[in-house]
C-alpha cells in the first residue's frame, strides 16, 4: 500500500515540477520588482528617482529631483547618482513607458554593481507617474 502511494506521489510530482519550471508566467528571480505609481505616491519615506531614458528626454520632462542615468552614458552619469544616493535609500527607476526595458536594465545594473537591495522599476514608465492619483 505504502509503495503504491509513494509511486503515485512520484508520478504526480513530475507534471507539477514541469508546470513550476516551464509555466509562462513563472516569475523570473533575476528581474527587478516593479512598483505601481500609486504605491510610490503613498510612500512616506524618502526615495530616489532614476531616469533611465536618454539625457535629452530627461531634460525635456524628467521627474523633478530625478537623477539621469542612461546606460549610453553610464560611466559619466554614475558619479552623479552616487553623489545623490545615500545607502539604504530606496531607488525607483523609470523609462519612457510600456515595455521599454531600459529601466529594468539600469535597475539590474545598479543592483549588481552597487548591491542596492531596495530597487524597483516603475510600472508603466514616466507617463504612469503623471497620471497616478
Amino acid at each position: 500500500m505504502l509503495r503504491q502511494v509513494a509511486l503515485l506521489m512520484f508520478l504526480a510530482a513530475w507534471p507539477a515540477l514541469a508546470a513550476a519550471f516551464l509555466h509562462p508566467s513563472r516569475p523570473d528571480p533575476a528581474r527587478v520588482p516593479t512598483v505601481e505609481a500609486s504605491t510610490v505616491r503613498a510612500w512616506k519615506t524618502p526615495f530616489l528617482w532614476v531616469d533611465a531614458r536618454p539625457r535629452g528626454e530627461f531634460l525635456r520632462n524628467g521627474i523633478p529631483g530625478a537623477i539621469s542615468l542612461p546606460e549610453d552614458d553610464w560611466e559619466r552619469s554614475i558619479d552623479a547618482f552616487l553623489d545623490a544616493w545615500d545607502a539604504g535609500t530606496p531607488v525607483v527607476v523609470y523609462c519612457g513607458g510600456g515595455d521599454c526595458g531600459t529601466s529594468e536594465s539600469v535597475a539590474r545594473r545598479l543592483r549588481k554593481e552597487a548591491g542596492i537591495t531596495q530597487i524597483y522599476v516603475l510600472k508603466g514608465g514616466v507617463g504612469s507617474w503623471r497620471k497616478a492619483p
Partner: protein
Amino acid sequence: MRIFFLLALIVGSAQAQLVWEKPVRNLRAQPGDEKVEAVFRFRNAGAFPVKITQVVTSCGCTTARAEKNLFAPGESGEMTAVFKIGSRTGRQNKTIMVHTDPQSNTPIILGMVTEIVENVELDRRIVLWSRGEQPVAREIHVKVLQADPIRIVRAESSDPRLSATLREITSGREYVVLVKPADTASPLRGEVVLTSDSPAGSPQTFMVRARVK
C-alpha cells in the same frame, strides 16, 4: 522576452501586409565586441504597396534602417539593426518599432535580445562608506568565467587615502580585492583599477568606484 513574443504575435496577426521572418532575434556578444547586428527579413504579403514611415528604437544605443522605404506587393526586404554595447553587461532587451503606411497598420515591434558574455565577473563595482562609520574593508570577489585562465596582476588605488589589497584565491580563476579607506572622517571619491594579464599587449582593466560620503 515573453513580452516580445506576445507583441510579435499580436502585431503579426493585426499586420496583414509586412510579414516578418523572425521578429525577435537572440544574439550573443563576446567580450570585447563593440556592437551586435541583426538583420530582420520581411515580405509584403498584402495586395498594396507598403511604405515604412518611421523607425523608433527603445534606446539611443540601437539604430535600425531598411535598405529602402517602399515595398511593392510580394516584394521582400531587410531591416538592419545595430546595438552598440558600450559598457553594458548581462542580458539586454532592445526593441524597434516600425511604423508603416497605410497608417491603419499597427506598428510592428521587433526585438533584439542580446546576451553579453563576460569573461571576468566582479560581484561589486561600487563600494560605499558613510561618514563617521568604521572604515572596515569591503571585499570584491573576482571570478574568471571563461575556460582559459586570466590572472589579475594589480589592484591600484587612485587616492592615497584608499588602500587596495589583491589576494589570489586560485591563480587565473578567483581573486579577492580588499578596499579600505584610511578613515571616514571626510568625503572621498576614489577608484581602484584592477589590471589583468589578458589579452597580452593591451590587458583588460576593471574599475571599482569607492566613496565615503
